[in-house]
């Protein structure tokens, strides 16, 4: 039985570690203390999103969809969409390996005034997927970006 567990663990590790290793060699990135599996941007991710201009276009589309969304649009009713798109662009540009530096508030602070549940977070992911579809971003690239964004649920989701 022990070797079965070991085998399962090894399978899990094998599926993830090759990629993680390649990533951590390519781009040493700060990992949160909790992270045993730091995710660095996949090679070419920033370019796949059309660099800064492409990311800005994606975010301009995204913020409009966000505000129009029946589930979470209400949360953005007083938000300056242009400013939100700029902040998101800086953040995603940096996460994706681009030359930007995000200088806005951290995610916990930015959402402190809102009640964000897990299902709100999932809805936001779905809206982002729609925007990425509309921009013609390939599914595999979408997932590489989502993998960088998903851990932010720890700071964004504040209502259980």
């Amino acid at each position: 039985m022990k070797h079965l567990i070991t085998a399962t663990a090894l399978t899990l590790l094998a599926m993830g570690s090759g990629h993680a290793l390649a990533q951590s060699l390519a781009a040493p990135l700060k990992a949160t203390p909790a992270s045993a599996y730091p995710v660095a941007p996949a090679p070419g991710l920033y370019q796949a999103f059309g660099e800064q201009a492409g990311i800005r276009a994606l975010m301009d589309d995204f913020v409009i969809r966000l505000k129009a969304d029946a589930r979470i649009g209400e949360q953005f009713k007083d938000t300056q969409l242009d400013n939100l798109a700029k902040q998101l662009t800086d953040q995603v540009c940096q996460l994706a390996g681009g030359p930007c530096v995000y200088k806005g508030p951290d995610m916990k602070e930015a959402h402190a005034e809102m009640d964000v549940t897990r299902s709100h977070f999932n809805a936001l992911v779905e809206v982002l997927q729609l925007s990425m579809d509309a921009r013609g971003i390939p599914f595999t690239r979408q997932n590489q970006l989502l993998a960088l964004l998903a851990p932010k649920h720890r700071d964004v989701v504040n209502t259980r």
Partner: protein
Amino acid sequence: MNHPMNHLTETRRRQAPSTTLLALAATAALLAAAPAQADTGKLLLTGGVSTVEGAAGGGISPWAVIGSQATEGEKGVSAYLSRAETRDHGLTAAGVAVGFNDRLELSFGHQDFDTGITGTLLGLPGLHLKQDILGAKLRVAGDAVLESDSLMPQIAVGVQAKRLRSSGLDGTLDALGAQRDGVDLYVSATKLFLAQGVVVNGTLRATKANQNGLLGFGARLGGADNGYQLMPELSVAYLLSKNVAVGFEYRAMTNKLQRAGAAAGLGDGLRADDWKDIFIAWAPSKNVSLTAAYVDLGRIVPATTGNRKQTGVYLSAQIAF
């Protein structure tokens, strides 16, 4: 090895499309046509599909995910109808699962196994074996989907209480020393490797069930091993798009009846093999998923089936809210 299509053709030749399959197709068409409910909840396919035992997971193996569309702070329900047709047998499975707070899942599943030629050769033509399964699953740690910077999987523990209804096979099961009810215990670990679009689940199940309980639980005749055994199960799925996944599953099965069968003069006529499948799952909307699979359930009462492997097709429809 025979080509899958041969089995399909044979199945069609052997019997007209069953009413179950027609009902399944009609239900699926109806559900797919219904407007998708604008709602919060889980991301597509991250609640898994319904197993033949009622728990959320793959098709033959439970995963650590909690069924239904409900995420934290929500309650949800899912229902499924599934049909497998192999060379000599058929299985219809239906049931419901309720998810609470993405933490606890309660499920009920019913299985109806058409023994086909096996029943006929046992002198029980038309024999159907029917089993009810009550399940509970508790997520104890982790998050399969959003913790993409961690290798920690979502982990759940589960229990399945199974009861095989009384049938013409009761006397045979008694003679072999097999019970008609049993309890499976399992632990599952599920991880979505988001950047790679790969879902992996490993399950370890403690069970005495013969063919998942459809041939009873344990066996005593001839000194057969009547105790619990730990059986591993593995599922791997690859996301082709937001709403389509392909993959394979492997479920190790107990083989307790072989020795009892030998003691009854049947040689290897009651041996069992591991179950395997390759599948494609499609979620046309948040509330509907359809799964098709090619299954290989190995030998099932090979004394009556010319030692044939029970390969065939599996179709499943699930609605979830």
